């Protein structure tokens, strides 16, 4: 079977205030249907930019992205996107925020509210359906942000540090839920995170990016059998090995990124 998404020699530069910033440099990656990919890398290395290119919000400087053998132009609505910070609509109640994608597709109110309510229940937000975003906590907003993408069942889901602002307990519970949802629906997921434990626990393959300019450093298969238990996975031997290896790589990159910043500020 051909890969559902294939990225070839992707290159993206930004020009801002007279500076040229290379965000993504010569990146190639093939993603199979139903795969769970996690991406780790130092801050500012171009992870969000990569996702923005895939979704079509950012136009690559060069290189191609093909989705199901078709070259991508503009926004692809088959791909769902959970952005790094929640962009819930402040003038919509929680349920109407979650149901927004269905509303855009012309689904009638009863059906879309039913579906939204079910998801809201699943992530433990029941009772807050008619609250406005500013009346919810950061973690609650983030959960709404995630289920808003799940509700319309996109083929591929891109998640940009979706559990970033959450506390450790909520995080692990949501990881567990995400894995269950993924097992049922078998979607292709590309998931950015800063947390290496999370990256390994969830992934089929972990992608490590270099510090700026963001290149592909390594792709590592995770051979931990599924279904996985996110609560105990860190005590498994295979996990240990993968973790140590990836941590070594990541540390080098973060170190390089810091050196770069120091030199950058000194000059």
């Amino acid at each position, binding site marked *: 079977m051909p890969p559902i998404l294939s990225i070839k020699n992707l290159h993206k530069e930004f020009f801002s205030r007279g500076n040229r910033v290379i965000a993504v440099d010569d990146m190639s990656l093939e993603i199979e249907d139903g795969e769970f990919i996690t991406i780790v890398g130092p801050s500012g290395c171009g992870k969000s930019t990569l996702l923005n290119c895939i*979704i*079509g*919000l950012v136009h690559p400087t060069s290189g191609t992205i093909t989705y199901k053998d078709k070259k991508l132009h503009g*926004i692809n*609505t088959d*791909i*769902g*996107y959970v*952005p790094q910070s929640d*962009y819930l*609509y*402040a*003038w*919509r*109640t929680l349920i109407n925020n979650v149901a*927004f*994608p269905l*509303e*855009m*597709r012309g689904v009638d109110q009863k059906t879309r509210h039913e579906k939204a309510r079910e998801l809201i229940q699943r992530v433990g937000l029941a009772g807050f359906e008619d609250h*406005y975003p*500013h009346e919810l906590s950061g973690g609650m907003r983030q959960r709404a942000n995630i289920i*808003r*993408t799940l509700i*319309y069942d996109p083929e591929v889901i891109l998640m940009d540090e979706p559990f970033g602002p959450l506390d450790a307990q909520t995080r692990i519970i949501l990881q567990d839920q995400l894995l269950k949802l993924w097992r049922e629906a078998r979607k292709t997921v590309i998931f950015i995170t800063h947390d290496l434990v999370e990256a390994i626990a969830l992934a089929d393959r972990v992608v490590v990016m270099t510090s700026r300019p963001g290149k592909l450093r390594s792709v590592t298969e995770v051979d931990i059998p599924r279904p996985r238990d996110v609560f105990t996975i860190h005590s498994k031997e295979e996990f240990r090995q993968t973790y140590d290896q990836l941590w070594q790589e990541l540390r080098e990159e973060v170190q390089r990124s810091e050196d770069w910043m120091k030199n950058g500020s000194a000059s």
Partner: protein
Amino acid sequence: MVDMIDKEASGDKGADEAIQTTHEASGRVRIPKLGEILLTIPLPGVPQLWRGDYLIGSLLLFLTAAGYMMCSVTGMFFHAIAFVDISISRTGRFIKNQKLRMFVYRASFAGGFLAMWELSAWEIGPKQWLCVDPFWFGSPLRVMSYMVEITLSGSVFVDTWTTMYEAFLGYILGAALGIALGFILARLETLAEILDPFIVAVNGIPRVAMAPILIIWFGIGVESKIVLAVSLVLFLTFMNTYSGLRGVDPNLKNLAQVMGANEMQVLWKVTLPAAMPWILTGLKIGVPFAIIGAILGEFMAASKGLGFMIQHTSNLFNIAGSFAGLILLMFIVLIANTAVNWLERYLLRWRPKQQAAGEGGATEVY
């Protein structure tokens, strides 16, 4: 006017001479009375309004007002100011309903003010009782009787309706044009950039200065007033709509597209509600300006309307009549503001309370 001052000055001189002569006749030093001393203080420009013999009255008025404020509330004379507030809230406490209590306070404040005004204008004997000459300041009863008069003659309806009609039509047209223009220019960025200095320049022209030309162009009927109101409201709503639309976070729009919204849906479901607070701010500020436009036009040339009525009555030194016009205007603005506030509270019900209050406070300044 010069005449009057001269006469008054000579009169004062006469009084001085009179004092001198009595002094010489009796052969003793006579200490002038307080009133006489006060009378010798020259008051340039003021004599028409606050003549010397009213001065004592005005002092009395001040003392009575201070005394009234304290005694009516606490039942004691000259209570320390610090206690006044506490005593007001104590006195009112027998009214349990908080809203009703506030209403009673406000009603007594208004009633007290009107009563003072009325009393000070009463004529007892040859002089006014206190100091306010109703010729210059009118009095509540006079205003009311004038109101009754114009109600019976029916002219109040014509005038009020005319002004409301002009202001309302000017407001609706101006707001619609302003919002539409805002939407169009927010889309056409290059055009907006080209037009920017011209828009700022045209908006800089004081509308009073434009009024005469507008009257030549549109005649002395309601049209010129509507155009004036439009010219004021249009820019306000346009500026606010435009900057509101430009200020919408592009991420909100992008994300809507990712979630499957088409361009129209992005416009209606994301851009418009996101810019709504700014649009409503423009609409709110526009309300008094619509009325300013109408009145301005009526001052210039008109045969009906509250602006015309105020100018007409003041030309005839019918101060009570002018006050009647002002009061009617006040009520029109109050009602219009209330309507727009309702609209805002409904459309922005999603906003946190504090934020809404802050915004409201800022827009009251115009």
